[in-house]
């Protein structure tokens, strides 16, 4: 790797720190929903994808089955696969390096890499690796802190954690609502999930909204 430009380091580090700090919210939410500190840390180490991790703890916490938790999280993880399709021809790595690259292919590493691409190819690659590894380090560190903190709290409702989880989901979805179609889909999904909750087994009302999204996407 050649010299790393200061701007690439600055972008990567600031994203790593801010995003990594959300790990506190995840670690706390995870323990509040019944996961152990060990399981919370394993999710951050091995799944390493914020929205999917929040979904697993959210679905199980709402009384859903392991299968619906895994299915919801995996549907949210599909986009990482699409980022991989975008990044693979740019990174051109094989073997162990490809395994590591795949594991750190997330929203943030892809975004910083594509943002740095207008400078040059080298900056793009450095942005990807620095951000991916940086987020990984801070995300896992803060997950542990959040999980230990929640464990020390006792009744997590008394600390507002049961509202912090939906607020975190809201914070994740908000920036994605760019058009009226996006907003209509969000409101439809909210109403559908509420209406179906007393009828369907826990977890299914959430997964079912993916089909609404597919229907909207196919229509145009």
């Amino acid at each position, binding site marked *: 790797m050649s010299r790393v430009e200061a701007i690439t380091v600055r972008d990567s580090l600031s994203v790593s720190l801010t995003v990594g700090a959300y790990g506190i919210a995840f670690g706390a939410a995870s323990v509040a929903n019944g996961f152990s500190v060990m*399981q919370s840390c394993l999710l951050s180490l091995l799944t390493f994808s914020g929205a999917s991790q929040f979904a697993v703890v959210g679905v199980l916490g709402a009384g859903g089955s392991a299968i619906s938790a895994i299915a919801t*999280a995996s549907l949210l993880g599909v986009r990482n696969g699409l980022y991989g399709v975008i990044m693979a021809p740019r990174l051109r790595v094989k073997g162990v390096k*490809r395994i590591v690259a795949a594991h750190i292919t997330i929203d943030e590493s892809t975004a910083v890499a594509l943002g740095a691409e207008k400078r040059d190819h080298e900056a793009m690659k450095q942005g990807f690796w620095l951000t991916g590894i940086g987020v990984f380090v801070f995300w896992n560190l803060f997950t542990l802190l959040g999980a230990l903190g929640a464990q020390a709290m006792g009744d997590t409702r008394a600390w507002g954690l*049961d509202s912090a989880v939906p607020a975190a989901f809201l*914070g994740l979805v908000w920036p*994605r609502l760019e058009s009226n179609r996006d907003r209509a*889909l969000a409101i439809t*999904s909210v109403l559908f999930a*509420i209406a179906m909750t007393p009828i369907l087994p826990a977890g299914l009302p959430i997964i079912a909204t993916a089909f609404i999204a597919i229907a909207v996407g*196919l229509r145009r």
Partner: protein
Amino acid sequence: MNAFWIATLGTSVIAFALKYSGHSIPQHWLEHPKVQRINALIPIALLSALVAVQTFTEKSKLMIDHRLAGVSVAVIALLLKAPFPVVVLSAAITSAAIYNWL
């Protein structure tokens, strides 16, 4: 192995499989605009549904409680363009205050 372990390990295995397959399949397979569009829409639907379920339900029953106040404050924070930590913290503080003192 209980549900929590199955969910932890199952999610992790599939998450990596999805990431790795993205790095291994030919790019043109997924270039169709409909695939791109659906990929952008699915997170919106799922995350919105999760907000609803986490706010309004408790063990398959609908319920309005301190969480609705917390999430309403989060909406206000987002409308005021507050950063993510402020959104989450303001929701937690509101919710905790109502849970503890009302």
